């Protein structure tokens, strides 16, 4: 595999907002903006943990999650999610995304332990992406749990007053075609 690794000359970082960043492999410690090159470094110390040094300022960085080629990076307290692809992977991904059908069913899960105070969704009803389906009380706050997709509610697995754990499936939604 050793030779294969060195053959990869560039990598694509695809953001969840569909922006594409291209970097060379091996990765350079500078980024060109306009006509100027700026140095960028990943550093670490006891007080701050890891940080990125950029234009004489330290920015906190953390990896919130990583799975295979997907990374959620917390940069200066904001999350960014990327998929990293090799040129070959990138091409394949584009072909696949044209062929692959979409997910049929979406499970709305409880993001944290808490108590259900209200169920707004009704079985059989249409919901829009972003529409609140359940109200969950946790940490003294009422949180709207929203539908991640446009679709039809096919099953409700909870009711007001129920104590739920993280990741309990609350509502099942059939994704609109």
């Amino acid at each position, binding site marked *: 595999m050793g030779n294969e690794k060195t053959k990869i000359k560039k990598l694509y970082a695809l953001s969840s907002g569909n922006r594409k960043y291209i970097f060379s492999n*091996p990765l350079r410690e500078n*980024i060109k903006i306009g006509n100027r090159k700026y140095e960028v470094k*990943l550093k670490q110390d006891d007080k701050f943990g890891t940080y990125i040094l950029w234009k004489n300022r330290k920015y*906190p960085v*953390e990896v919130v999650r*990583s799975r295979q080629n997907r990374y959620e990076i917390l940069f200066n307290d904001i999350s960014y999610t990327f998929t990293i692809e090799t040129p070959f992977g990138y091409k394949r991904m584009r072909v696949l995304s044209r062929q692959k059908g979409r997910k049929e069913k979406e499970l709305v899960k409880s993001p944290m332990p808490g108590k259900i105070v209200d169920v707004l969704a009704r079985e059989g009803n249409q919901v829009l992406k972003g529409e609140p389906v359940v109200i969950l009380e946790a940490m003294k706050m*009422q949180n709207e749990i929203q539908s991640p997709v446009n679709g039809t509610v096919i099953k409700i697995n909870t009711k007001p007053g129920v104590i739920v754990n993280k990741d309990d499936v609350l509502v099942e939604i059939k994704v609109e075609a």
Partner: protein
Amino acid sequence: MKIKRILIANRGEIAVRIMKTARKMNIETVAIKTSVEPSAMYLSYADVIYDNTEDESEIPVFLDIDKLIGIALKTGADAVHPGYGFLAENAYFADKCLDNNIEFIGPSPDAIYKMGNKTIARKIALSSNIPMAMGSQGNISNEEEAVKIAAKIGYPIIIKAASGGGGRGMRIVRKPEDMEKMFIIASKEAEKAFNDPSVFIEKYIENPKHIEFQILGDKKGNIIHLGERECSIQRKHQKLLEEAPSCALDDRLREEMGSMAVKIARAVGYYSAGTVEFLLDSDKKYYFMEMNTRIQVEHPVTEEITGIDLIEQQIRIANGEELKIKQKDVKIKGWAIECRINAEDVQAGFAPDPGRIEKLSLPDDEYVRVDTGVTSGSAIVSSYDSMIAKLIVRGSDRRDALKKCKLALDKVWIKGVKTTLPFFRMLMRHPKFTSGLFTTSFIEKDLDQYYHNSEYEELLAAWLATKLFIEENLTDDSIKPDFRESREIDPWLLNKRISQF
């Protein structure tokens, strides 16, 4: 000083805040160690720690009146400070303390009861000629009555829970045809939240500012006000940023509203620290909303511009001392802003983000004050509120305070949980906020994005993700960035985030 030892019936930053002042006054403190937070920072400020970790009750000890009285008696505390939240505005708790010869550091049980019940408070304000939004005389018993009264007042109206607070049991109604349904919803919600289904109706004031006055009164009947705080930056009735003074008030209006606040406090024989809340509309007309009979989260901004330690005053008043500060002595100097840094994910609509604080570094500039109950390694647990720290910044005027606040926000370094920091960074750059022309509907109506990220941040994050990919897949050497291994991928948060792009 008769008071020798205070039981702190609270936790977190407010417990620390109270104990700091007690120490300054040479009064001992007792803190309660719970199994939820056995190594919490507030414990290190106490002279005596009462170990309650064996307690397996479902109800937090800070809400258990009998247990708290028992602890006070066992540890020889002669006073109790309730802080805010929990039992701070529970008249029965205050009464129980007094029954057991324990000084309650707060107002009388009678004042707590009267101001805690919103319909009684309305009646008192009405008979004291305090300006108020038009509303129902008392509680409303059924839908028909609600529809009739709402028609008389004129829409939009707001339905509020008599025993309410924090936005629960509250509904805004704009059309007569929604009235019946909303009345039933509000009443049910009030019953669930406060064990009391009573609701009343008020004219809804559109786009007001939230202006509140800090009151201090002693047991001899002296009452003064310490000026106002502006708390219009709120989301779902939860305040996020407060400042003092408010740019909406001039000296004349300040004096008038302040004297109204004193008047209503006097009507209930108020002593200790308290807050009278008003709504201020675009014509600078003000309306009494409610009185909070406790020390408030945002009290530091008043302390910073008046130089008065409110906790010290509360203790002295409870001790029976006469208020030494006269109204004419109260001088407002400079400007103070408080940002509530909470463990919340602003990219996911402020969803709570409990977890362990892995790294914490706070600014120590002379213009900054930080009130906190956590340190590196502390946990933000889901059983309590999501407060990490209050960042309080002082400036010579509003412009100066905003400038310093912006600088200070960039010096706060928190790892392990997501925080409201990006929200405040956005706020400091938002023209409507910096102009001072914002109202309580600011977050709902004036924002396209809840957070600030400067140019190139996504690019730099992409660089890091690529670096990690190369190191994990294509080479061997690396610095491994701080990683939250305990966390699973969370489709709900992710979806919410993605939907915001």
